[in-house]
């Protein structure tokens, strides 16, 4: 996803002279093409994320469209007050891009994990929270983000993730509108962000056993697509929400907030697959970390089977 980001932002930088790329001392080679084409619109801001974010808000208020880029915890929670005050309070159209979200940098340990960012950022007024499920969603969503005249947070995975959509370059999404990836009848999976390929894999395995799964990509967590939620929660008995994020405050919580605001409790039961409320003290690769927290394809599959058996 991050190489697709570098490619897409380079194209956008060529198309739109307002685009300025700010990096927190990361991804330098990746942006060589951007730098070649727009040498006065790329700045390595150093390992100084608070300044990078405040600068971005100042630049946005001056008519530019700055994009900040570094590892997720450092461009979100590290400089949270700069996002809250400089970006959101001023409604400054800054695009905040975090790379290696969730457990992507599993072996780097919890300092580099981000399992709270959705919870924390979606609490800020006015910001769009966008977690693309693959390169195709990222490319389309990044273009859409640039058209928003407000703050957008983009939560990237790492590189070489499986593709969800066959056409990487001509996918079209609308921020705030969920995408139906697979139509199905027995159970609904809602995925967001970099866990979407695991959700797809679980759906595929279940299909082979005769269980028909609908898969929805809720790439935008805020604003939440409540029209789609209404339809899904009245049509299915079980809706499983999957995210590579803490069980506290993420997409599951956002949907739960919507449910309790309803006059009539919807038909479907909400089931959450998310990380437990704890740090990961064991070192391993990304697949290990997902298994550890029980958010991998196998865990999703078993949870679905369990839910369907409870029902009958």
């Amino acid at each position: 996803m991050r190489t697709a980001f570098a490619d897409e932002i380079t194209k956008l930088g060529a198309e739109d002279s307002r685009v300025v790329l700010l990096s927190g001392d990361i991804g330098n080679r990746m942006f060589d093409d951007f730098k070649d084409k727009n040498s006065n619109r790329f700045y390595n801001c150093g390992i100084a994320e608070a300044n990078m974010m405040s600068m971005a808000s100042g630049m946005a208020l001056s008519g530019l469209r700055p994009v900040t880029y570094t590892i997720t915890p450092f461009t979100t929670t590290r400089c949270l007050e700069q996002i809250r005050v400089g970006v959101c309070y001023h409604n400054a159209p800054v695009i905040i891009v975090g790379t290696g979200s969730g457990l992507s940098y599993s072996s780097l340990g919890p300092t580099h994990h981000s399992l709270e960012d959705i919870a924390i950022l979606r609490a800020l007024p006015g910001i769009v929270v966008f977690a693309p499920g693959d390169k195709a969603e990222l490319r389309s969503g990044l273009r859409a983000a640039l058209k928003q005249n407000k703050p957008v947070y983009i939560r990237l995975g790492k590189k070489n993730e499986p593709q969800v959509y066959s056409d990487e370059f001509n996918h079209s999404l609308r921020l705030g509108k969920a995408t139906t990836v697979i139509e199905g009848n027995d159970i609904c999976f809602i995925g967001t962000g970099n866990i979407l390929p695991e959700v797809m894999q679980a759906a595929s395995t279940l299909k082979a056993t005769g269980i028909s799964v609908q898969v929805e990509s809720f790439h935008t967590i805020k604003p939440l697509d409540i029209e789609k939620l209404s339809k899904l929660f009245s049509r299915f008995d079980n809706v499983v929400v999957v995210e590579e994020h803490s069980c506290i405050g993420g997409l599951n919580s956002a949907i739960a907030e919507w449910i309790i605001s309803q006059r009539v409790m919807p038909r479907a039961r909400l089931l959450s697959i998310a990380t437990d409320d704890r740090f990961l003290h064991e070192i391993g690769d990304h697949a290990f970390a997902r298994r550890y927290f029980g958010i991998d394809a196998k865990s999703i599959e078993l949870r679905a089977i369990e839910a369907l058996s409870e029902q009958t």
Partner: protein
Amino acid sequence: MINSLEETARKLRRRIIEYSYKTKTPHLGSCLSCIDILVVLYFDIANVNPNSPNDPDRDKVILSKGHAAPALFQVLALKGFFPYESLINSDHVNGGLFGEHPPTPSHLPGIEAATGSLGHGMPMGVGMALANRIQGRDARVFAVLGDGECNEGSIWEAAMFAGSHRLDNLTVIVDFNKWQATDRSSDVLAINPFKDKWSAFGWNTFEVDGHDIPSMIKLLQSDSNKSGQPLAIIAHTVKGKGIDFMEDDNNWHYRTPNAVEFAMALEQLGYDQ
């Protein structure tokens, strides 16, 4: 010219104290220490026009020490960004606009950044100065900081960026009144040697008496900084300047004057009741 700026500062001191007295708005000491700096910027140096507050080629002044907002509000009103009456008649209980910190630029003309949380305004100003350079605009950015505010690490991140990128369209003026909220700034953290710090970060640095209007104008004139570096002015000031019983008394960080004190202050400024 100079006489008229000093008269403007005197008039603003009166209005600031009257406003604090009537509305019980604090941070009077902080307002009185930076008012001469603001007068120099808004009434002489900065290219700002109340009739076109969003002109992309305007100079930008950011009050990074946002708690001196009562001083800024009076300056902007006198400059003509909004009517003085809208300020003095504003509602402080049920939804007015003028609180203890600047609102956002989209809510009040003349404001460039909604400051108040310290350490944000100056880095935003660095972004604006860099934007001017990218956009090829010949405009300047000024940020007024407090010495207490320089406790914040973000100030020094921003100082390093501006120094390394030689943003000579950026000026920082530190209202060095030697106090922060609860103590002497030199006793709280190691602020000194203060000038050396800015120089070491790549800034063209000067010290000046922050109540000496002609000296400040000389340093701030657009052709005076030929260094190619950002300009840092350490303005030595007195908290509560102009009213003897407020001067260098940090109780006036939070206190507001009573009727007797208000009358004494007016008398000291040479005004009848």
